[in-house]
């Protein structure tokens, strides 16, 4: 299924999600408000997107942009689901009960960005030690053990 067919399919099934659909670099993406992410993801799953391959986030300064990659084996298509949460006290509803694969991915995003996933069954650090201070993939992260690369290298 190519990108235009996917857009038509999406628009016929869920007309209210259609304006949020955009094409970036040849791939479909659906940017929704943070409160609406769970219902949109639920709709995506009902539409046939049965696999969550990746959850990550981007530090946009004032906000964090959450990125979910969902694919469908039946339609042979995939889209990005995106939502923005504020930098101060970032919260979003967990997608663990839609796709169980979200469990460890969301733990990783929590570990690296400090975004809290409400309703997550076991939200704790996954890659770093439990007593770690700070969230390393935030742009303003500082660590006394980190050595800055000098300019001449």
């Amino acid at each position, binding site marked *: 299924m190519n990108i235009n067919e996917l857009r038509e399919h999406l628009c016929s099934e869920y007309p209210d999600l259609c304006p949020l659909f955009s094409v970036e670099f040849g791939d479909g993406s659906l940017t929704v408000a943070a409160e609406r992410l769970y219902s949109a993801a639920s709709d995506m799953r009902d539409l046939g997107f049965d696999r969550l391959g990746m959850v990550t986030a981007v530090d946009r300064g004032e906000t964090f942009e959450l990125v979910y990659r969902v694919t469908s084996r039946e339609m042979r298509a995939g889209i990005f689901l995106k939502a923005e949460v504020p930098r101060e006290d970032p919260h979003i509803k967990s997608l663990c009960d839609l796709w169980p694969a979200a469990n460890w991915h969301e733990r990783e995003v929590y570990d690296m960005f400090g975004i809290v996933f409400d309703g997550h069954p076991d939200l704790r650090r996954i890659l*770093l*030690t439990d007593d770690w201070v700070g969230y390393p993939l935030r742009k303003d992260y500082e660590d006394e053990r*980190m050595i*800055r690369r000098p300019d001449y290298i």
Partner: protein
Amino acid sequence: MALIDDLGKALDSSPGGSVILTSVDAIMDWSRGKSLWTMPMGTACCAMELIAASFSKFDFDRHGTIPRADPRHTDVMVVAGTITYKMAPAVQRLYDQMPDPKWVIAMGNCAVSGGIFYYDTYSVVRGVDEFLPVDVYIAGCPPRPEALQDAIFQLRKKVDSESVAPGRVRDVEYVLPLPGDPRAGDRIQALRDGGGRK
């Protein structure tokens, strides 16, 4: 080990005991140096070279360096790969489980100094010698199995100079030609001339 240490101490302090001590040392070091069973602490790409070293093309079993998965069976820990701050306590614990005497080889740039993860990294230990006593360092990213072979030979030299008596160092002339040893050239040339084997 306690018995051997006491024996070494007693022999070293008693008159004429060092004659026996040299023989005990020779036997101990010969047996230790020829069976350096390795604990393959492979955490990254260096582990691929470490695995290749055990297989038939390089065949490190002929040096007596048999890889064992259990730290309680092994003499030398080969730290091959990047060690993170989360991994370090596990490595320390495995090292503590190894019976004395034990040695450590830091294989590859990550284990030596952090390697490419030295700058701008929050999670990587800058060299395994921050928490383990390293005997031999191998540079390379990753090093070839031949470099690991050389490290085993260098470690064997070090083992040969150790004594069962604490604080005593054996003055050992190494009889096997090592890579870089000027005597090796003569011997290889002699082999080429057909005079080495009779």
